[in-house]
């Protein structure tokens, strides 16, 4: 690619990035206008107050502790959910007996609100990180299983037949035909799981935690410190966004064929 083409590409991406930021800028503007109109920090702090609160948390070292604690719990839960959910979804989609055994169990347990399991997990697993990670796993595993399953089931039969005709073993079929086809669906499930992990983390950290963004929100709420509530929510949003983008770009890299084939 020539320098001119590189330059043109850079402008194009910058332009796209700006176009996608308009909505966020608009929301921030609206927030600031409303905050100034209300003029009540308790109800709606302005962006300045939230940034100040973030600065205070950073200066005191609490922000880094909270970020580390929350990220650790969310990512642990997410990775374990993925490590269990993907193979299970693959197995359910590929083998009728696995589907027969797990299908109804998953359908029955999926609607149970995982936030409602928090007291049980605390009773069984204690008030430490284990119960919090367990809650995240319990919620995040479902989109991974279901999306993986859909991806497997969506593999065109002719691809399977062709592979079988060419002498592919069951393992080769799974690894070289089904899994690659299911990969875009798996990534979609992972992105959903990541979002759910952050939502459940917040709820889990509201009971018997001493660090973490969810704890910080609860603590700030007790002291009617709304700017800190907003600051912590903003950090959750930023972290969730960052990890979601990471997964998105990973999926673009791993499933390039899929993105170019479709809209």
């Amino acid at each position, binding site marked *: 690619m020539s320098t001119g083409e590189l330059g043109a590409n850079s402008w194009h991406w910058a332009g796209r990035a700006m176009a996608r930021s308009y909505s966020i800028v608009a929301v921030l503007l609206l927030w600031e206008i409303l905050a100034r109109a209300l003029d009540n920090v308790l109800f709606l702090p302005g962006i300045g107050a939230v940034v100040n609160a973030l600065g205070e948390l950073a200066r005191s070292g609490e922000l880094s502790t909270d970020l580390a604690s929350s990220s650790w719990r969310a990512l642990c839960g997410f990775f374990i959910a993925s490590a269990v959910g993907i193979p299970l979804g693959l197995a359910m989609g590929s083998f009728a007996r696995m589907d027969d055994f797990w299908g109804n169990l998953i359908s029955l347990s999926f609607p149970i609100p995982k936030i409602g399991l928090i007291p049980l997990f605390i009773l069984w697993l204690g008030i430490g990180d284990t119960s919090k990670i367990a809650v995240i796993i319990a919620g995040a595993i479902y989109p991974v299983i279901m999306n993986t399953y859909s991806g497997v089931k969506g593999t065109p039969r002719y691809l399977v037949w062709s592979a079988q005709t060419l002498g592919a073993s069951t393992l080769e079929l799974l690894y070289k035909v089904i899994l690659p086809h299911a990969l875009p669906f798996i990534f979609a499930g992972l992105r959903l799981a990541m979002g759910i992990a952050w939502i459940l983390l917040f709820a889990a950290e509201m009971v018997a935690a001493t660090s973490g963004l969810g704890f910080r929100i609860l603590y700030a709420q007790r002291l*009617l410190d709304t700017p800190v509530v907003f600051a912590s929510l903003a950090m959750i949003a930023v972290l969730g966004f960052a990890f979601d983008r990471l997964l998105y770009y990973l999926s673009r890299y791993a499933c390039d064929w899929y993105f170019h084939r479709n809209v």
Partner: protein
Amino acid sequence: MSKPPGWLTPTLLVLTLVACFSSPAGAQSGTEIRMGYNPVWSIPFLLIGKERGTFEAPPGQVKWVTFVNPNQVIEAMAAGELDAGGITPAHYLIALDKGLKMTAVAILSGWSKPTASYMVRTDSGIQTAQDLRGKIIGVNNYGGVFDIYLRQMLDKNGVDPKKDVKIVEVPIANIYQALSTKQIDAGAVPVLFVPLAETKFKGQFKILFDFADVPGIRERPQINQLILAVTDDYVKKHRPALKAFLRRYLDVVRWGYANPAEATALWAKASKVDLVKALPDPFGPNTDAKIDVPALQLDIEIMHRYGYLKKIEFGARPLVDHSILDEILAGR
């Protein structure tokens, strides 16, 4: 399928908006007092009056709204959804610190026997407050009265509440469970739950210390466990109704002290906690429903020390407003 008529979508939108913005549950009727409370909180005379139907007639008739913790009462008052509620002095002071317009007008509970206590397992080896070093302690609410008196007790016994212990928030209903399963080493328990240690958990737990052991607090003739806060707006617009309510409340207080057995029976019925009847001294000293101001000032000092309050003065506004009670007591 035929297209829906053009007027349907805008009509549905308007109806949705009207439904969203009209809030019959939140609308206040006349001189009604929307009161935040919980039957298991230590608010004996409020509950006794509720059980006797004392607060049903206007003016100043009460509409009861249940909350899980006093913090939510403050939030509802700040949002204009409540006129009054039972809150801890600590939460009241935080509200004043944040500039919320409310005033404490009466005490709801003070000293009692037993008083709120900090429990440990009998087999834990913890004998004194110093033994709590390195332990995990459960309180129901950060910044609440259990939290600040715990910190005061620890501090005065040479234990740094910020560095030497871990204080976690555990709902009151789960405290004994958390203690029993060793998830916490000590837990703060309100008055109504203290007898459960003997009756339900037979000997598993013991009181390590209670409010009567806390330096600075134990010297006070009265403490403010829960107080009645009213929004400034309600006081300004419905002072006669508030006076009528407080007059009836004072009548219940006097009747309760004159008839303790009957009063505790009614309290037990209202709270559905039968053990209330077994409390040796459920009501403590009679201060004619007045808040102990020096105790409140001590709370300010403690909370400021532990970073819960930024201010120790709240401007020209008084900490409490006893003017209505004074009028009633003077026969006006």
